[in-house]
């Protein structure tokens, strides 16, 4: 049976943005019903730009910290911008010289497979994500009263809030799912043209800031935990 998983996800004291982003992504991804079972073990993931996160998975508890811990046995490379994207599988980070590491992959094939799968668990569908996003974001400063979202590949529209839309966002479903998960930020997405928006400077700031709040939480992930509690009744 596919059921959501709600392990206790803990971050280090004074966490880095990469740790917070990974923690909040795990909270969201694991809230979606999945056939993936969590493994136990310690692994590290490095993004091409350099930030690394060590993930320690124990029964019912996942803890994250910056850097590559001495305790990690498995190492992966994955662009953190592609978390949740099954077309960008994490690569085993072995240079062929580190025999300890290679042995670890041979010794723990099941764990390796589970972790690779875990890292590409999808985000919630964009409409579900948008509803969750609005639950938290609507009360933040500089937000529009109403937002019209148009999904091009699904030919779907969704209005958040009430009244005539004060802001409009258009894009494909994956880009919208990432945006509403706080994984990407509207100002950057519109700058590079992945999302199109018609919005005032104030509302652009409000929507972008809301994305950052979701991505980074308040260092304990409470924002996103509140969000999950309000929308899933955990």
């Amino acid at each position, binding site marked *: 049976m596919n059921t959501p998983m709600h392990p206790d996800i803990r971050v280090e004291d004074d966490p880095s943005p990469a740790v917070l982003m990974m923690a909040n992504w795990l909270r969201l991804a694991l809230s979606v019903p999945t056939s993936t079972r969590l493994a136990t073990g310690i692994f590290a993931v490095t993004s091409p730009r*350099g930030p690394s996160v060590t993930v320690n998975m124990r029964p019912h508890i996942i803890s994250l910290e910056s850097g590559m811990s001495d305790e990690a046995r498995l190492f992966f490379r994955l662009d953190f911008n592609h978390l949740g994207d099954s077309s960008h599988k994490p690569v085993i980070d072995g240079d062929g010289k*580190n025999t300890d590491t290679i042995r670890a992959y041979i010794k723990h094939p099941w764990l390796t497979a589970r972790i690779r799968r875990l890292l590409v668990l999808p985000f919630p569908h964009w409409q579900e994500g948008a509803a969750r996003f609005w639950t938290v974001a609507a009360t933040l400063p*500089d937000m529009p009263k109403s937002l019209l979202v148009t999904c091009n590949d699904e030919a779907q529209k969704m209005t958040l809030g009430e009244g005539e839309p004060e802001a409009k966002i258009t894009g494909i479903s994956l880009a919208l799912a990432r945006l509403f998960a706080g994984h990407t930020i509207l100002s950057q997405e519109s700058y590079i043209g992945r999302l199109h928006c018609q919005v005032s400077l*104030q509302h652009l700031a409000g929507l972008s800031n809301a994305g950052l709040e979701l991505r980074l939480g308040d260092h304990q992930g409470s924002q996103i935990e509140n969000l999950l509690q309000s929308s899933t009744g955990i």
Partner: protein
Amino acid sequence: MPQMDEHLIDGLGLAEWLEQHHVQLVRTHATTLDGPAVGKYLRRASFEKALPDGHGLSYIALAADLSGMPHFNFWHKFQEPGLGDILLRPDLSTLAQDGKEPSLSHCICDFTLIDGGEISLCPRTMLRKITEKIASVGYGIKAAFELEFFLYKTSFAEARKGGYKNLEPIGATRLHNIYLLKNAYHARPFMEEVTKQLDRQGIEWESWNDEGGAGQVELNFPPTDPVRAADVVSRARQTIYEIALDMNMAVTFMAQPSSDISNGLHIHHSLQAENGEAAFYDSAQGGRSALLLHWIAGIVATMPGAASYLCPSINSWRRLKEFSATPVTASWGEENKTAALRIVSRSASLARIEHRLIAGDANPYLALAVILAGGLAGLIHKLEPPDELPPMGGEPPDRETRLPRTITKAAKALREDQYLSEMLGEDVVDYWLKTRRAEWLSFHNRRHEPAPRRSHKKGPQSVQPTLWEFERYFELI
């Protein structure tokens, strides 16, 4: 411009002053949130024509990070009209001749709205407003800065090319000598040019000396009113940078340019009663007035949050080390340089507080404003200070409040500080916090230097600055 002619500069009307000084060009100068000065060079006629409101410039001048990236992820009400202009309104009382070019004058400005309205985020405006609040309860303030910087034989161009690994400090030794005249002699040609140009600009300075780090110099200014004192620092930083550039050398105010000694920006301040007497001094109380104790209590209580302004950059935090000259606790003590606040109360003429937490890369206006805001909160709320730090030969006692040690922890402390929001304005504090989040994100989003596998070090907690910090702070601060 009749109203301008009424404004006397050195006893002269503006037109007369410009004429008498053969001014052809005026450079406006305003200080951004992160500290660098921005402005324009204006033909004299254009400068005069734009008075009294000043000239326009994009609002980005006040709403971008140190790399020039506009802050699109947060917003302040001064940006209401969209991607529009704001003004730099000259404070004509600051008009001064350039130290080198006789036909050039400088003028310090405030950021204002296009209709002349105040922008609460303007650092100079913030400092002026808190000074006015203190005046409204009956006190004047005098403040003085100790400006520290590192001086290198290496030029800026060579430093950039060498990834800042080739910096050669001026001086006879790379040891930790202080006040060494042999070291000072190496710096003398440079400092002679600096002090000459400060003199020509009418900037008073007291003394300079060789400081503890290799190539480090400290320049001291006499006490004056707070806004003027911060103006002096902003101008001096620009002047010192220009002279280094002209002399094919390099200079930096960044807090921790090496793993060794750091740059601070200690601030001394005192209060005067309306009759001019030293308000911090009371001979009947052994030298310390009741006002001084409330004032200390306010600064100590708000210090964890104020640290966000006093140590504003990623680099600032590398400076704070246990058991060193940089304070790590919210503490105070008489003539005690291990405390964050060194109190001098042995005579009315010397009575003052020296705040020792401020990093060399702090914005002088914001740093002084947040310190005064803390003091005022202590006075208004009649706060009582914690016990005085005893003279120490070891680590501070456990009872002392530890200061935050990272940009994020200081931001958290500031967010929770009701006194500072009350004194500085919630909008101002909220915007500042978002700029600090942006700075933190930029640092973590940098292209990391290759790290060995299983390295567990986090950038901000080690002492050695990263290339990203040099590229961002070395020349700009």
